[in-house]
C-alpha cells in the first residue's frame, strides 16, 4: 500500500474516531442532562419557589434539599420515594385545598407517613421516580394507585375486625354477608352461616309450581332503565337476597317441576278449633281483626309491607324477614298456619320466633295474610304448567346442582356445594394481567374489573354463571372496597403480624333459659356479650339495669319507652313462668362489673335530696331536652315516667357517673356531676313512678 493511501486510511480512521468520540461524549452527556431535566427536579424547584411565596417559608424549607427522598420501613418492605415530589405532605400549614398538588399536606390520618410509607395504603410503585411509573399501571408494575374512594380497602387488609373509622368498608362487608356471596365464593373473614337460602326439602308443600316458575324467572325484583329496583312493584333500597339467574324456558320448567315435587315431610296440619272458625268465618271483621293483631304483634319489625304514605307507595317495615305484600298469592294456607305455629318444624334454622298463638289470632291473622295481601295478577304471565312430568323433574334435579343452587339451598339427599364460584380471598391483590376482561369495554384496572363483574357479570364473561344483582352505585362502590381489601392473608404486604383478627363471640346459653332464648330468638334483635342483632337494646347488663318485676311485666306486655321509635318488641304471649325464668337469668347472669347492686338502696334518699335533684334536672342540666316525664320532654333518651319501677338505684348512679362505661354507644354525654348532684338526681328519679301497674305500659326502648 502506498504511503498516501496509508494517510487516507488513517485520516478516515481519525474522522471515524472523532465522530465516535463525539457520539460517545454526547451519550455520556445525556445522563446528566436527563437527570437535570427529570420530573422530580421540576417539582422540587416548584416547591422551593412555592415555599418562597408562603409566609412560613422557613418551616416549609427546613428539611428541604434537592435530591431523591425516601421512606424506608424494612419490616414492611417499604421503600417509598413519593416524598421526592410530595414535599409538603407533613406540613400542617399546607393542609388546604388551595395548595396545588403535589405539595398539599396529607389530610389528617391516625397513621404517620414516616412510620408507614405511602404504598401500604395507596398502592402504586413506591420506588419509581417518575409520575406515570409511580401512579399508573406499567409493563413492570401492575398495582396502580388506588382511588381514594376505595382507600378503606387498605385499612381492611390489617383491620379484619370492623373499626368505626371505615364506614364504607364495613358496609361493603355487611353487603357481602347480606347477599350471601359466601354461598359460592370463598371470602376472607366472612364465615358461611348455618343457613344461606331456605332449606327446600319440603318446598312443594309451601308454594305451587307456578309460583316457583315466576320466582325463578323474576325474583320479585324488577329494575327499570334508570336502575331503580322495585320489589312487588314498589321502589326500595332493600333487594331480596335471591338474585336473578338467567334461566331459559326449559330450565324454568325443569326446576319448577323438580322443586314442586319436593314434599317428602309435609308439616303436620293443624286443626284450628272449629268453634273459633265458626265464630269468625262469617264475621265481616275477620280480616280487619287479623290486620289489627298483625300490627299489635309487631310483625312489621321484621317484615315489610307496601303502604301508601303521603301519596307515594313505600315498603314499610324491617328486612329481617321476607317482604309480605303478596304473600297471600304465594303460600298455601295450610302451610302458612303450621309455619306460624312452629317455623322451626319446617325450617330448622328459621330465625322467626315460636309465638304462643291463640286459635283466634291464628285464624284471623292467617285470613288477613291469605286474603288481603294478595295480587290476582301475580302469576298471570306464567304459562300453563300442569303436573310435573318425570323428565322435567329429572332435568330440574340435574340443573339444581349444575346452576349452583345447592350452594345456598339445602335439599335432603343433595350434597351441599361449597366454593362453587372462584375463590375471592385474594382478589384485592390480583394484578391486571391475572384478570380476564373479555370484550368488556372498560378500563383495564382491578377496580373497574370488580365493578363490572358485580354490576353485570355477563358483560365481562357471557358464559358467567353468576346471577344478576341490582345494586345502587353507592352499594357497588362499598362492595368493591370490601373485595379490594381481601388480599389473601396479608402475606404479600409483609404486615401479617400487624393484622387485627376478627372475633366471633357466640352466645348460646344452656338450661331453661337457653330453651326460651332459642324459642323466642332473642339474639335476632338483642345483643348478648357482643353476640346478636342490633335492632333492640344490648342486654349484656340488663340484670344490673332493670328490676326483676319490671322485666316480667315488660315481657308479658311490652310497651314503648322511646316515643319516636316505630320498632317495638313483639308480644309473644309468654306464660308467667317463662317470663320469670328469663328475668331470673338476666338478673343473675347479665350483670355489669361496674354496678354493685347492694351499694345503693332506695332508702338512702331523702325528700330534700329529691327536691334538689328536681332542680338540677329541670334547671341546671335541663335533662328534659332529651327525656320525657309524663307527656313533656324530648325524644332522644328513654322516657323516665316510670323509671323508679324500672331501673335499679345503683344503675342510675353508675349511669350518671359515666354512661359510656355501661354502654359505649350511649348518646348521653358524660358530665362533670359532683357526687352530691348524682345522689340528688338519683333521689329525684326514684320518685318517678307511674300510678298504674308498671306492666300496663311498661317499656321497651
Amino acid at each position: 500500500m502506498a504511503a498516501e493511501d496509508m494517510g487516507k486510511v488513517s485520516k478516515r480512521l481519525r474522522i471515524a474516531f472523532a465522530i465516535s468520540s463525539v457520539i460517545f461524549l454526547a451519550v455520556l452527556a445525556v445522563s446528566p442532562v436527563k437527570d437535570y431535566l427529570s420530573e422530580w427536579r421540576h417539582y422540587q424547584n416548584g416547591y422551593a419557589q412555592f415555599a418562597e411565596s408562603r409566609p412560613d417559608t422557613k418551616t416549609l424549607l427546613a428539611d428541604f434539599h434537592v435530591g431523591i427522598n425516601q421512606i424506608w420501613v424494612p419490616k414492611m418492605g417499604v421503600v417509598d420515594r413519593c416524598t421526592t415530589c410530595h414535599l409538603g405532605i407533613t406540613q400542617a400549614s399546607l393542609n388546604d385545598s388551595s395548595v396545588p398538588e403535589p405539595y398539599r399536606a396529607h389530610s389528617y390520618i391516625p397513621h404517620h407517613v414516616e412510620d408507614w410509607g405511602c404504598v401500604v395504603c395507596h398502592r402504586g410503585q413506591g420506588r419509581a421516580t417518575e409520575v406515570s411509573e409511580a401512579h399508573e399501571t406499567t409493563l413492570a408494575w401492575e398495582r396502580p394507585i388506588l382511588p381514594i374512594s376505595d382507600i378503606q380497602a387498605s385499612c381492611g387488609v390489617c383491620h379484619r375486625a370492623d373499626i368505626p373509622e371505615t364506614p364504607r368498608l364495613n358496609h361493603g362487608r355487611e353487603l357481602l354477608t347480606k347477599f350471601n356471596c359466601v354461598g359460592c365464593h370463598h371470602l376472607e373473614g366472612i364465615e358461611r352461616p348455618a343457613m344461606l337460602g331456605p332449606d327446600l326439602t319440603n318446598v312443594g308443600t309451601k308454594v305451587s309450581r307456578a309460583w316457583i316458575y315466576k320466582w325463578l324467572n323474576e325474583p320479585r325484583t324488577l329494575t327499570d332503565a334508570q336502575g331503580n329496583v322495585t320489589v312487588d312493584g314498589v321502589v326500595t333500597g332493600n333487594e331480596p337476597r335471591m338474585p336473578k339467574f338467567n334461566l331459559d324456558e326449559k330450565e324454568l320448567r325443569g326446576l319448577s317441576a323438580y322443586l314442586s315435587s319436593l314434599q317428602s315431610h309435609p308439616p303436620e296440619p293443624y286443626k284450628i278449633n272449629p268453634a273459633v272458625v265458626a265464630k269468625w268465618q262469617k264475621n265481616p271483621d275477620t280480616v280487619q281483626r287479623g290486620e289489627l293483631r298483625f300490627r299489635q304483634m309487631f310483625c312489621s319489625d321484621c317484615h315489610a309491607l307496601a303502604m301508601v304514605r303521603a301519596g307515594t307507595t313505600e315498603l314499610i317495615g324491617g328486612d329481617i324477614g321476607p317482604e309480605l305484600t303478596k304473600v297471600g298469592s304465594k303460600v298455601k294456607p295450610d302451610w302458612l298456619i303450621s309455619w306460624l305455629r312452629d317455623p322451626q318444624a319446617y325450617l330448622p334454622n328459621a330465625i322467626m320466633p315460636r309465638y304462643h298463638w291463640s286459635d283466634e289470632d291464628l285464624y284471623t291473622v292467617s285470613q288477613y295474610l291469605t286474603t288481603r295481601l294478595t295480587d290476582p295478577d301475580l302469576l298471570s304471565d306464567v304459562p300453563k304448567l300442569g303436573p310435573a312430568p318425570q323428565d322435567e323433574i329429572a332435568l330440574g334435579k340435574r340443573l339444581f346442582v349444575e346452576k349452583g343452587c345447592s350452594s345456598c339451598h339445602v335439599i335432603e339427599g343433595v350434597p351441599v356445594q361449597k366454593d362453587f364460584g372462584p375463590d375471592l380471598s385474594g382478589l384485592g391483590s390480583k394484578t391486571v394481567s391475572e384478570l380476564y376482561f373479555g370484550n368488556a369495554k372498560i378500563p383495564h384496572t382491578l377496580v373497574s374489573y370488580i365493578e363490572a363483574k358485580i354490576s353485570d357479570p355477563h358483560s365481562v364473561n357471557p358464559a358467567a354463571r353468576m346471577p344478576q344483582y341490582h345494586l345502587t352505585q353507592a352499594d357497588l362502590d362499598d362492595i368493591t372496597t370490601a373485595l379490594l381489601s381481601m388480599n389473601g392473608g396479608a402475606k404479600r404486604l409483609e404486615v401479617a403480624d400487624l393484622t387485627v383478627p376478627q372475633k366471633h363471640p357466640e352466645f348460646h346459653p344452656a338450661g331453661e333459659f337457653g330453651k326460651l332464648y332459642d324459642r323466642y330468638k332473642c339474639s335476632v334483635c338483642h345483643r348478648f356479650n357482643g353476640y346478636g342483632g342490633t335492632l333492640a337494646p344490648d342486654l349484656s347488663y340488663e340484670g344490673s339495669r332493670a328490676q326483676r318485676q319490671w322485666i316480667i311485666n315488660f315481657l308479658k306486655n311490652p310497651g314503648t319507652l322511646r316515643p319516636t321509635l316505630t320498632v317495638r318488641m313483639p308480644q309473644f304471649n309468654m306464660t308467667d313462668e317463662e317470663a320469670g325464668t328469663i328475668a331470673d337469668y338476666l338478673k343473675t347472669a347479665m350483670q355489669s362489673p361496674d354496678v354493685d347492686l347492694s351499694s345503693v338502696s332506695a332508702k338512702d334518699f331523702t325528700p330534700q335530696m329529691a327536691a334538689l335533684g328536681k332542680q338540677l334536672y329541670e334547671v341546671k342540666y335541663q335533662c328534659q331536652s332529651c327525656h320525657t316525664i309524663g307527656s313533656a320532654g324530648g325524644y332522644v333518651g328513654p322516657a323516665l315516667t316510670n323509671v323508679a319501677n324500672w331501673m335499679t338505684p345503683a344503675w342510675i348512679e353508675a349511669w350518671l357517673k359515666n354512661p359510656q362505661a355501661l354502654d359505649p354507644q350511649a348518646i348521653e354525654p358524660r358530665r362533670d356531676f359532683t357526687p352530691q348532684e348524682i345522689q340528688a338526681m338519683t333521689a329525684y328519679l326514684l320518685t318517678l313512678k307511674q300510678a298504674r301497674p308498671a306492666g300496663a305500659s311498661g317499656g321497651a326502648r
Partner: protein
Amino acid sequence: MRKAALALALVAASLVVLPACKRASPAPKPNPLRQAYGTQQDWNNPGHLFPLDYQQTQGKRIFYEKCVWCHADSTPAGPSNRSNLNPTPPLINDGATLNPLSDAYLENVITLGGAAMGKSAIMPPWGRTLTQEDIRALVAYIRAVAQPPYQRPAQPGPRYSTR
C-alpha cells in the same frame, strides 16, 4: 463526510428528542368523589354529594351518633328532637349561622357546652365523652357541609401554580 455529520446530527437529535417521546400521561378525570374518603348527601339538594376527607368522615360518624338528634330535621330513628327545643338549635349545615364562628369557638362550645359559653344549657358539654380529636373532626365536618359553603379566612401570600 457530510453523511457522517448527518448521522451525527441525527444521533444527537434523537438523544435529545427520545426522552420526550414517553407516553404523555393522560389527564385524570376530575371526579372529586373518586378522590374522597367518604361522602355526605346535601340536605338541601339530595342529588348532590359533598366529598369528605378522612377527618371529616370521622366527624360525620360522630355527628350521626351524638349530634343528629337535635341538629338535624330527620334522624336515623325517625322524628327529630329539634322542634322540641327552645331555643331551636341550628342545623349542622346552617352556614349562615355557623360560618362566621371560628374553629376555636366551635371547639369550645362543643367541649364545654352551651352554659359555659353564655348560651343555652340544653347544649351539653362533650369534653368528657369525646376526645379533642373527635371534636376537631366534628368542626371539620361542619365546615365541609356548610351551605352556603364555608370560606376559610384568607391566607396571606399569593396563590401559586406549579405549571
